[in-house]
């Protein structure tokens, strides 16, 4: 597995230019990197739940997708694509179609962690051969930056605002990558748009397995995270370097950290460049929250190292 830049330049662009996503959006970077990992010579069907990617790439009567595409509703991309995959298996077995297909969902964190969680879990449990990719920007960005289950502690969003009685979101995010791994499916990975070689390789592995695969890709949103739009990749990189978003995979039950972090940076370096955490630095009373966030990162990182057999 793996791909060189030279090889990547020869791959067809499945998501074409001309879509209406924001300049500096992390989502199309995630999509293009994942699709670089699709095998040659297969047809694709892409499904989106409702979200930024969907409304920006499928505006009737146009499309940005050089492949078949379906959007059904918000909470059911996994079950909708289950049906497409089930139809494929049935028609293929009956000899009614000949081409080889792969199936991939690109869903935001709202459509994946929250409202689409049940459909995702059901599809993973049933074992459909599909790659589910969460382009994770840690809030409901399409509707204007509302908190989700992927939003971290202390984060400002429009539904977890800070104020006299609030320091932002009062809860930790859920660990969806680990939850997906608990389904005992062949391949699960956590990735970031800042580490393209790592992500493309993970996508190749995800497309190769004969069963469900799940990839959780950090894809920052400058509108919601409040940083200059040209810094999307740098922000994502800092999430990895601080171990706030570690990169790993769970391949047939075996945990493996794919991007080693030797000198873990303090999480404040990642938080302070984002307006969504600015309140934590302005007011002294929020100092405890910053400490708590660092403690969370340290604990989760050690847990991951332990699972990956990297702890002495």
């Amino acid at each position, binding site marked *: 597995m793996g791909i060189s830049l030279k090889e990547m330049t020869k791959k067809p662009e499945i998501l074409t230019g001309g879509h209406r996503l924001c300049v500096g959006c992390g989502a199309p970077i995630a999509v293009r990197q994942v699709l670089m990992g699709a095998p040659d010579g297969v047809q694709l069907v892409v499904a989106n739940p409702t979200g930024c990617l969907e409304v920006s790439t499928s505006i009737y*009567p146009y499309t940005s997708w050089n492949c078949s595409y379906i959007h*059904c509703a918000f909470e059911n991309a996994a079950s909708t694509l*289950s*049906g*497409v995959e089930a139809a*494929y*298996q049935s028609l293929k077995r009956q000899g009614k179609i000949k*081409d080889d297909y792969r199936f991939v969902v690109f869903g935001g964190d709202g459509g994946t962690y929250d409202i689409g969680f*049940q459909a995702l879990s*059901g599809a993973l449990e049933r074992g459909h051969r599909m790659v589910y990719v969460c382009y994770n920007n840690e809030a409901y960005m399409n509707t204007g930056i509302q908190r989700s289950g992927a939003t971290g502690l202390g984060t400002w969003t429009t539904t977890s605002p800070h104020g006299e009685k609030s320091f932002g979101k009062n809860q930790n995010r859920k660990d969806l990558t680990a939850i997906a791994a608990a389904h005992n499916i062949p391949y699960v990975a956590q990735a970031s748009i800042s580490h393209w070689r790592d992500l493309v390789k993970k996508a190749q592995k995800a497309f190769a397995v004969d069963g469900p695969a799940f990839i959780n890709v950090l894809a920052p949103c400058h509108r919601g995270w409040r940083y200059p739009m040209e810094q999307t990749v740098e922000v994502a990189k800092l999430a990895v370097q601080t171990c706030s978003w570690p990169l790993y995979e769970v391949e047939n039950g075996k945990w493996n950290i794919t991007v080693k972090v030797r000198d873990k940076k303090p999480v404040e370096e990642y938080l302070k460049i984002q307006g969504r955490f600015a309140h934590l630095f302005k007011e002294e009373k929020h100092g405890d929250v910053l400490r708590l966030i660092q403690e969370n990162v340290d604990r989760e990182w050690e847990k991951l190292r332990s699972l990956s057999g990297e702890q002495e």
Partner: protein
Amino acid sequence: MVVSNNEINKTVAIVGTDAIAEAMRQIDPDVVAAYPITPQTAIVETFAQMVADGQVNTNYVPVESEHSAMSAAIGAAAAGARVMTATSSQGLALMWELLYIASGLRLPIVMPNVNRALSAPINIHCDHSDSMGARDTGWIQLFSENAQEAYDNTIQAMRIAEHSDVLLPVMILLDGFIISHAIDRMELLDDATVRKFVGTYKPEDSLLNASQPVTYGAFDGLYGYYFEFKRQQEEAMRNSIKVIREVGQEYGAISGRPYDLFESVGLDDAEFVIIALGSAAGTVRSEVECLRESGMPIGMIKLRVFRPFPAQELVAALAGKKAVAVLDRSDTFAANMGGPVFIELRSALYEVEKKPLLVNYVYGLGGRDLSVELVNKAANELAGIAQSGQVKQRVNYLGLRE
């Protein structure tokens, strides 16, 4: 249990859920995605066994909810497969947003719904509140009086749904327990006849046509074709009336059981008429025939097709009648407007100059039995209305403990 055989029809005694499962086996859909719910459960259990025994080519997707059942059905239909599912009550309610998407994407999904009351209070028995709640979702709705009709409707539904002038999903309604769990004498067609009748499905567009990739569910946010799409859906529903009748005639030719939009008893000479749908039609017919023998000028209409609503045809059939009683197995909670069938019929008759007096009987909610005595009570009240020319109470509750 086989009672007797002839070349095409085999007489059997089976429960309604098995009749549906038999129809599904004979149709042999490419994909079935379903979730169990009382009283639909036996349909998916029996069908799962048929899959396990290799009697069908179907890929059976045992989803984790009815929401996912309809979502997977939509995905599979968009992928060019012939698709079925089945549900009841809360399951249909959970599918609600997707019912609109199935019809809006013009996907010919066929779904038996075993009618059961909607919570609360939770109740597993029959009424029509589930499917009546879905009456404006853009699905064709065919009601069945017994297991035979549920079976016949299921086979016809495939042809209606997939007709190029229609391309709409179809719901087959059968009364929970009364039809689904009671053993009924009925006739099954042989496999070859059903397969020939339903034919091969050739979708115009499919996600799995490599030479022509397609988009299903495009976003209509900026250029605004939504209105035109919806108008086309309404046009398809209008077209379906002709198609439903043609398919019903053609089905009659192979089975000896022709179907129309509704059927009637004694309309030629009746002065007043009872309208019912579902299993209640059997009770009503029995009592109406008794009363006619005793000289009462009463008739009945059994409504088979509720969506599309055959307004023009009903108005024509009721021309010259003095009074009509509509039986509704669900309520609308619209404050004394009556049940859905009553509201539709009343609306259909608005422009008619010399229209019959109308009275509504809401009955049977949550499985409350509709006895012959209750039908007799309604029939006598209807006779009184026809005679006096006065409706004292427009909406009545038949069999309610008051």
